[in-house]
């Protein structure tokens, strides 16, 4: 019983740490390459109708 409760407490603490590590990682600025990538994907989508053969990435 007591052990079970403490394990749960421990789980919560682990999750707390996980969230902290994860939040740190998610706070990093997103590199420019992703803005460029989205731009490319949008541009490609806009001219999708003419021909879908453009495969340069």
């Amino acid at each position, binding site marked *: 019983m007591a052990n079970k409760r403490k394990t749960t407490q421990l789980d919560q603490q682990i999750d707390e740490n*996980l969230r902290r590590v994860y939040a740190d990682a998610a706070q990093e600025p997103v590199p420019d390459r992703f803005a460029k990538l989205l731009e490319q994907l949008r541009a490609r989508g806009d001219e999708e109708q003419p021909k879908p053969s453009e495969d340069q990435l």
Partner: protein
Amino acid sequence: MKTDTETHPDPRDELVTHLPAMRAFATSLTRNAAAADDLVQDAVVKAWSNFDKFQPGTNLRAWLFTILRNTYYSLYRKRRREVEDPDGKMAGQLSEKPAHDGHLAMADFRVAFTKLTDEQREVLILIGAEGFSYEEAAVMCGCAVGTVKSRTNRARKRLAELMHIDDEDQLEMTDAATMAVVMGKPAA
């Protein structure tokens, strides 16, 4: 069926807001920053060409994460064995950025985390960090809810072991100290 832009925002516009989380999730899986960004890029490209299959109004992050983890398991896991360092790099990188208090304990935690299996890291991020339900995570991982639960439990247990707080009797005696270690805070 077209995306109903009247009621739901275009997921193509929303995608950008999920990039930081996708990168964090990818980093947890690959344990390597460069590989993580390649993985996110592949997942974004894949998502983009599949947006017609996305159900407007459903959880976009869950959908993106599913694509990301599928991409990881189909492409990156294999590739990584050939190329990469395992434990060291990510742990080293991460511990360069200590939390203000108790950074040693946090560094331990980060190192221990990188030693878990791919599946263990995955469920801990989905359940523990992102807060998805067991049911949601099961759908995302393509496995049974029970599998996700037992995987999560084993992952937590393993983390505790790696951080040398495996013995429950000991845990009872050193509760405050344990709490301090796990919380990354001073005991007082």
